[in-house]
C-alpha cells in the first residue's frame, strides 16, 4: 500500500471558487466522481492484463447495501456512457426486486436506456447467472461477486490465500475436492465452482451454477467481476482458457435436469428453476433466464408446452 498523504497543501481543484457542497440532489454523471471512476478504470485494466487475478481497489460506499451488488454497480458506473444499453439480472431474471432496484438507480444517475433483451444490451450486470443467449464481442458482462476468493473454502486468512496465489499453490483446494470424492463419491461444490484461468490463476466464477461455467471458456465477450465489500476486481478476457478443476478419472459435472423442459417455453437446454407447489407438492420447472424464455415463447409455436412441465412424480 502506498502512502498518499502529502506534506504540502494540495493545489485547489479547478473551479475552487464555485465549489461548495453539491446542490441538493445533484450528483456526478453515474454517481461516482471522476477520481473514483479513474481508480476503478485503472484497476480494471490491470485485471484484464492478468486474467483471473484479484486486484484490490478502494471500493466506495454506494446507496445500496454492501453484499447487494455494490461491486458490480461500481464497474457499471465506471464503464457506462450515454450510448450504452443496460440489462440487469438477478438469478437470471430482469424483474427480480434487486435487479429492478439497481436498474432504477443507474437509470436515475445516467439516463441510460435499459432493456431486458440480452441481444440489445451493451452492458449486462448479473447476479449468479450467465444469460442463455451467447454474447457477442461488443458486449460486456459484469458479475456481482459476494466472495471473490476461491480458496476461502479452505482458508479464512487473506494473507495466506494471497501467498497461495503468489506461489500458484492450490494443493489445498485439490485436496478438498479429492476428499469430497472419497467421502461422497461426488464433488459437493455447487455454485462458485473453482476454475483455473489462463493455466495460472485459480478463480471464483461468482455463484453461477456449474451449468454456466463452460460459457466462461474461450468466450466472445469480456467478463468482468467485482466484489464491493471485499474490494476486489478481476477479469476474464475473451478467448481465454477457463477450466473447472477436475480429475482425470472424475470429470467436472454440471447440473442435471434429467431431460426436463421449461413449462413456459418448452426449452430443453436451459438452466431451470424448480418451484414446488405448496398444496399438491408437485414440482414445476421454468427457465431461470426469464427474458430468453419470453423470447422463445413468443417465437415458438411448436416448442410451446401444454402444461407447466411438471415432474411426473
Amino acid at each position, binding site marked *: 500500500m502506498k502512502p498518499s498523504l502529502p506534506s504540502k497543501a494540495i493545489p485547489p481543484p479547478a473551479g475552487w471558487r464555485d465549489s461548495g457542497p453539491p446542490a441538493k440532489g445533484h450528483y456526478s*454523471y453515474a454517481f461516482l466522481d471522476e477520481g473514483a471512476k*479513474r*481508480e476503478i478504470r485503472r484497476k480494471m*485494466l490491470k485485471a484484464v492484463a*492478468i486474467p483471473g487475478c484479484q486486484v484490490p481497489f478502494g471500493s466506495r460506499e454506494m446507496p445500496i447495501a454492501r453484499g447487494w451488488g455494490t461491486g458490480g454497480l461500481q464497474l457499471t458506473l465506471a464503464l457506462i456512457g*450515454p450510448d450504452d444499453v443496460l440489462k440487469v439480472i438477478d438469478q437470471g431474471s430482469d424483474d427480480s426486486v434487486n435487479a429492478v432496484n439497481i436498474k432504477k438507480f443507474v437509470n436515475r444517475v445516467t439516463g441510460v436506456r435499459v432493456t431486458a433483451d440480452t441481444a440489445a444490451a451493451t452492458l449486462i450486470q448479473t447476479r449468479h447467472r450467465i444469460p442463455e443467449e451467447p454474447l457477442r464481442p461488443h458486449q460486456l458482462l459484469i458479475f456481482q461477486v459476494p466472495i471473490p476468493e476461491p480458496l476461502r473454502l479452505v482458508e479464512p486468512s487473506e494473507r495466506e490465500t494471497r501467498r497461495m496465489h*503468489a506461489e500458484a499453490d492450490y494443493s489445498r483446494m485439490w485436496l478438498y475436492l479429492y476428499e469430497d470424492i472419497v467421502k461422497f463419491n461426488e464433488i459437493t461444490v455447487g455454485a462458485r465452482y473453482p476454475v483455473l484461468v489462463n493455466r495460472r*490463476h485459480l478463480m471464483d466464477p461468482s455463484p453461477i451454477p456449474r451449468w454456466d461455467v463452460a460459457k466462461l471458456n474461450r468466450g466472445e465477450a469480456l467478463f468482468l467481476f467485482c466484489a464491493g465489500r471485499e474490494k476486489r476486481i478481476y477479469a476474464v*478476457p475473451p*478467448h481465454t482458457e477457463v477450466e473447472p478443476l477436475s480429475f482425470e478419472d472424475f470429470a467436472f459435472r454440471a447440473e442435471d435436469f434429467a431431460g426436463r423442459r421449461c413449462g413456459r417455453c418448452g426449452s430443453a437446454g436451459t438452466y431451470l428453476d424448480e418451484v414446488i407447489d405448496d398444496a399438491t407438492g408437485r414440482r414445476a420447472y421454468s427457465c431461470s433466464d426469464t427474458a430468453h424464455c419470453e423470447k422463445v415463447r413468443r417465437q415458438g409455436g411448436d416448442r410451446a408446452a401444454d402444461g407447466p412441465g411438471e415432474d411426473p412424480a
Partner: protein
Amino acid sequence: MDNGGRRTQKNYRSLLKAMSRPGRLFRLEAWGAGSHFAVAMAIGECLLDAEVSLCVVGNGGARTLRTALIGATQVRTESLETADFIFVGGSQSQGRVHLARRGRLEFPEEGATFVYCMDSQPAGASDRFRIRLTGPGIAEPGGIAPEMRGIPVEELQELKAVNADYPLGVDAFFVRPNGELMALPRSTRIHVR
C-alpha cells in the same frame, strides 16, 4: 455528462477493448487533430491523477508532455523504477523497460503501465509479420501479427524478456498521433521469427 467526461468514457472503453484484445487496432478520440500530445493527453485524462505517479522518457518532447500531463491531471512524478505510468516518446524505450516495476508475486498488479507515444507511421515495409502474438484475448490459436505497424521488433523482444516471469511484468499501450491504439498486456506471448 459534459463533453470532457464523455470523451474520457469513450476513450476508456477503447483502452479496455484494446487490453482485452491484444494486438488489435482501435481508435482514440482526442482534441486537436493529429498532434503528438493530443493522444497522449487523451490517455492521461482517462487514467492519471494525484493518486498515481508518472515518468516520461524519450525524445525531445518528453519534458513538454510531462508538464502538460501534470498540469491537466495533477499526477505525481517519480523515477522510472517506481512510477506507475511510463510515457515513452517514440517507439523505443532504450532498454528502460527492464528498469520499470514488474510487481510482486503477492501484488502483480503493481507492475507499471507503459504508453508508447509513437510517431506517425513511417513509410516502407513493416517488420510486423515476423511477430506472432498468442494468449488471452486472441482468438486465433496460431496467433496474430500485431495490427499496428512500425513497432520495432527489438522493443517487442525487450517486452517479452521483461514479461517472462508472468504474472510479474508490465503492460503496454501503443498510440499514434492519428489516434491508433494497440495494447499488449503481460499475458500476451510474443513469438519472434
